[in-house]
């Protein structure tokens, strides 16, 4: 199993915006945001099949997302998770004393995690503050 350090950015997409306005617990929001866009070259290097789950780990956390080919071209070495609940599991809160967290341009390791399950937005957020009542 290989591990490579990649540069991660978290940005907008119209699918994410459209889904968010339907509601954050809507299945569209889950589909739009629980993904990581990775260049096919990097996928090969990492041993990842497209549309399978991967574990993304940063200095401050880790999250399971589905690896897909970029919907907008992403150069090798750069990965992209759409802004939202899944991205913010790994966004470092360091602000360089400006109040703005490091939402773009932080190092992550990405590894295959085919057998891991994606968590819903509610499970991630409620789970992280000890309020999740559902099953594992």
């Amino acid at each position, binding site marked *: 199993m290989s591990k490579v350090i990649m540069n991660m950015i978290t940005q907008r997409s119209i699918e994410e915006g459209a889904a968010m306005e*339907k509601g954050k617990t809507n299945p569209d929001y889950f589909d739009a945001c629980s993904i990581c866009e990775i260049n096919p070259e990097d996928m090969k290097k990492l041993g990842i099949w497209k549309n399978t789950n991967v574990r993304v780990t940063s200095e401050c956390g880790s999250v399971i997302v589905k690896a897909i080919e970029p919907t907008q071209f992403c150069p090798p070495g750069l990965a992209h998770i759409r802004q939202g609940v899944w991205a913010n599991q790994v*966004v470092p809160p360091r602000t360089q004393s*400006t*109040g703005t967290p*490091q939402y*773009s341009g932080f190092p992550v390791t990405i590894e295959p995690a085919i057998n891991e399950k994606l968590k819903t937005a509610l499970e991630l*957020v*409620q789970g992280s*503050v000890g309020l999740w009542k559902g099953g594992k």
Partner: protein
Amino acid sequence: MPKLITGVGCPYCGSSCDDLEVLVSDDETKVLEVHNSCIIGSNLFHHANDPTRPRLPRQRQPDGSIKEIPYEEAIDYFAKTLLAAKKPLIYGFGSTNCEGMSAIGRIAEKAGAVLDNCATICHGPSFLAMFDNGYPSCTLGEAKNRADVVVFWGCNPMHAHPRHTSRYSIFPRGYFTGKGQMQRTVISVDPRETDTAKLADVHLMLDQGHDYELFDAFRTVLRGHDIPDKVAGIDKETIIKSVDIMKKARFCMIFFGMGCTHTDGRNHNIDAAISMTRDLNDHTKCSIMAMRGHYNIAGPGQVWSWQFGFPYCIDLSKGTHAHMNPGETSSIDLAMRDEVDCFVNVGADAGAHFPIQAVQHLKKHPFIVVDPNFNMASEIADLHIPVRIAGVDEPGVVYRMDNVPIQFKAVLKGLPGVPSDEELFDRVYERMCEITLTQPIWLAAKENRKYPHNTNPMVS
């Protein structure tokens, strides 16, 4: 007969489109059709039909379950919690009207709170750069009527501001830009080949996080000096060609976004961009504009600058004068240093959009959410108070990304019993005054007040 309402404002992104047409049912309780909007705006209006929208405040019980409570009880809890807190943090305000922002200013002052808005995690760095270096900007109409070179630096309007290019920046035929897109040269600067970059004549696919170097290279070329063969992954020839296009423009318009403010350097990237704009004005006319996110995120900057003198990160805990120092008084920094003991989230979703560690810190204390819908913040809150949706069932003033105020309409009757942000906050302020045995002076001074119930409190 269904009613077609024209000139409706869209309460989503900073483009604040005000040319929507909404077809509503004859009893004005359902949105049937939305014309002219992008898919996001359309979803937003249709979501207001959702029959499961909350109509009563919901409080978390000691056993973790949620119970609906009357508004009076929620207002009492809100007022008492704020007064009991040593340093409450009130955050949000991307998505509400200016009347609501002004009303929360009165509460924040009374509570000695820190008052902050979404700029803190968005275009806050742009504010810092403006403080340092000024803001040579214009309105979007000028971009539409005059700009023949348009630069999108670290922004992706095709996804984030879907109608921006068709209303203001690329496609419209303006007064001096009668040939529309044919007359404009579009430059995109982005590490990805975004859908905006695909529209551009020149795409500078720079290395992520190296914007500052590229700005420096642009300025060096502008001032007639030599640069290395490659800067930030871009060839010298391409840089010289791009600078030449910008220099020869009749009116050059630079839009910038999160690609500059969220990455290394934060405000210094914007600082360099503003310096480049000023340099370009030696050769041509050049203007710069922040691609503000929410439809009224420029609003709190305006309202609170007028109330307190500062646009965001406003520390009112001294009681007599306001203090602002992002890095010290910003939401994320306060949360990470555990310096607040109560969190109020209004018209935003800190639960989904703050880094999760900041959410974990904030959740140690009372957590109140004021929002028309369920979201991540409301689902971890101790108290969720529903309000009307500004721009859908509540009218009000909003400020577009270029700080142009627009009067938004209400297209639906609000849910019965559900107040607007302004009404809710005025009632909370009145309750705080009752508890502290003080006069609600700001409400007494308000001409069109609905509260306090006592019409002339100064006399009683």
